[in-house]
């Protein structure tokens, strides 16, 4: 079965510093990986996805993610964090069977301090 793991419950970073939110995956077959962000009292907003091709995927709001097949990782990155990036971030993998539901990680809370 497909799964993703987010090893950190919370990541703290100062504004202006680079940020990384970690995700590792376990899949049978090709990995189709997604990052979503959830702001307080809001739904899940799509940030980016890895399908195939370049290992560095660029997404919304200046975020990017690095796909590493040998380490089975898909870490979310941003060169310079903003206070407004503070939110809950979810990594997800597309289930390759059936109608391809998303399987989510447990989420990582990002806190960017001024």
């Amino acid at each position, binding site marked *: 079965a497909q799964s993703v793991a987010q090893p950190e419950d919370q990541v703290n970073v100062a504004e202006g510093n680079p940020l990384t939110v970690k995700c590792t995956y376990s899949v049978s077959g090709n990995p189709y990986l997604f990052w979503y962000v959830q702001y307080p009292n809001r739904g899940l907003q799509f940030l980016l*996805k890895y399908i195939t091709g370049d290992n560095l995927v660029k997404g919304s709001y200046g975020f990017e993610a690095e796909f590493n097949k040998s380490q089975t990782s898909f870490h979310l990155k941003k060169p310079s964090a903003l206070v407004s990036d503070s939110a809950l971030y979810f990594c997800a993998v597309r289930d390759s069977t059936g109608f391809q539901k998303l399987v989510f990680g447990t989420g990582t809370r990002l806190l960017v301090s001024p």
Partner: protein
Amino acid sequence: EPEVTQTPSHQVTQMGQEVILRCVPISNHLYFYWYRQILGQKVEFLVSFYNNEISEKSEIFDDQFSVERPDGSNFTLKIRSTKLEDSAMYFCASSALRGETDTQYFGPGTRLTVL
């Protein structure tokens, strides 16, 4: 930009009552999903729906749950007799295609509180 909408934003109900959560998917999308997130836990898949029938459902989606697309625009989730453990945030999502590469777009969620 088109978006998925959900109503109500918050629903409070008594245990044993029926609730209907409503969603309006993005207009040209064909695949619809419900997920839920119990407070402090991960987002979990409930059901997917295509061509007016359930495509896949999880173990959570038992006989107390049903889905419907009553009028070509709305997509509803009904819980027949709510339990305390149904308290959660319920998210609707839609996608244009079924493919593995297609993106699911989520609504803002309905917070269901069962007392």
